[in-house]
């Protein structure tokens, strides 16, 4: 069981003049084991902040996040994170990037390289295991970043617009690969995206956040199996619904 429970979550960022910006307020969300959740919403709705709180990189002002019944108090390898920017360590080869988390756990070199090799193979980059990050394309770098997060065998995989910087074709391919990884590893995934299309393609449930302060506006379940057909009428219909929702929350400001 690797569910995430978010209760009455609020986050205020203090400002220079002593007041505070309320980024999130009263967020309640229950994420089930092995679920694929996409967080969408207009920019400034605090979706990245929410993800960072789950990761433990930010602390909530009010409320709580629990994973598997344990409260989140700081970053932990049990919650893997894939960042939007390229976050691979440029001084480490692919293999040693992927093995980094295992190295921190104190696992012996032989064993951690074996494990890392398995995940590198899973993302299809075995022939690049000894390459440095600068030798890889953007899509490959993000695949390595995913392998690096998975190598720690986390309960939850948190992804902050991981494909945001990629071109459209690479992006579509990465989405397919992510779904296959998800099916292989059965991880709970929380995925932040700007792209409604991406969310409808990937998610079991889409969580639409409203801005300033961010809170859950609507949760839309998408029961269809994968792979999904982007060009189908029902796909277009759901996409239209979500887009309209985001539009409304923005205009109601």
């Amino acid at each position, binding site marked *: 069981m690797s569910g995430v429970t978010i209760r009455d979550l609020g986050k205020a960022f203090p400002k220079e003049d002593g007041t505070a910006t309320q980024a999130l307020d009263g967020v309640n969300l229950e994420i089930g084991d092995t679920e694929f959740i996409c967080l969408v919403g207009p920019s400034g709705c605090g979706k990245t902040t929410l993800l960072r709180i789950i*990761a*433990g*990189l930010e602390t909530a002002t009010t409320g709580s996040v629990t994973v598997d019944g344990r409260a989140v108090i*700081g*970053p*932990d*390898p049990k*919650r*893997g*994170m894939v*960042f939007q*920017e*390229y*976050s691979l*360590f*440029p*001084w*480490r080869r692919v293999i040693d990037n992927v093995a*980094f*988390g295992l*190295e*921190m*756990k104190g696992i012996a070199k032989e064993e951690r390289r074996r494990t890392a090799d398995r995940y590198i193979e899973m993302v299809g980059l075995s022939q690049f295991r000894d390459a*440095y*990050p*600068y*030798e890889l394309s953007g899509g490959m770098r993000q695949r390595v970043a995913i392998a*690096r*997060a998975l190598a*720690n065998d986390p309960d939850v995989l948190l992804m902050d617009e991981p494909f945001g910087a990629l071109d459209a074709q690479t992006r579509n391919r990465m989405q397919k690969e992510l779904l296959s990884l998800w099916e292989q590893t059965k991880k709970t995934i929380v995925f932040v995206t700007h792209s409604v299309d991406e969310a409808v393609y990937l998610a079991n449930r889409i969580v639409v956040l409203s801005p300033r302060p961010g809170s859950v506006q609507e949760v839309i379940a998408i029961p269809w199996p994968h792979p999904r057909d982007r060009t189908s009428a029902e796909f277009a219909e759901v996409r239209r619904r979500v887009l309209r929702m985001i539009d409304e929350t923005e205009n109601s400001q």
Partner: protein
Amino acid sequence: MNRQTQKRLLGVAALVIAAAIWQIIAEYVVGRSFILPSVTDVASAFVTLLESGTLVADIVVSLEHFGIGLLAAFLLGVPIGILMGWFRVADFLLDPIIEILRPIPPLAWIPFAIIWFGLTTQAAGFVIFVGAFFPILTATYTAFRSVPKVFVEAGKVLGCDTSFELIRYVALPAAIPAIASGIRIAMGVGWMCLVAAEMFGVSRSGLGYQLWHNYYLHQMPNVVVYMLILGLAGLIIDRIFRNYVDGQLLRWHAGEVA
């Protein structure tokens, strides 16, 4: 003939021509070795100094001074730079002290170097240390301040849970290219300090000392020999360091910058 050999040949040709012009001016225009020693004067001075063994001995002494100063600057500058770059409190505490000491020219420390250490290798080493310390400190500090936040956060979510681990496995490797160029600058400053420190009597031997000593003796060809050796040694040290850093340490960095 490829570009590389062409470049080499032209370079050698230019040196030969410059030496010839120097020789002609020294011999036929100036005509006094005291004002401008000729190439042949310098060459024979070089041979004499080399045969007597003093030249090699002085090179060794100067390298010793340089080594002591640079090693001390590295051993103190990097850790203090790390502390100030990583821990806010250390920065606030040490910054005022550093800011007061930094603008003092290293050579202004010569009197105290002599009083504290006497005419020892440590005294000369100390002056070089003062010159080399601040470039290394500043480079380390700046490098640590500018470690991309995403690397630190990635380190945290991947299981670095102490400052020590984050420094050891994330910030330090990220900072090494900038620290290395700080060390290179420090070596240049240190080399200048070396000459001045030895000239001003912190030492009774060494290249800088001999340069000044031979000026007193009016042995100007010897002075030119020491000038050229100082330049050459500085160049070689810099080249060795750069090749080492580029070749061994920073294969990844070359690719990042390109």
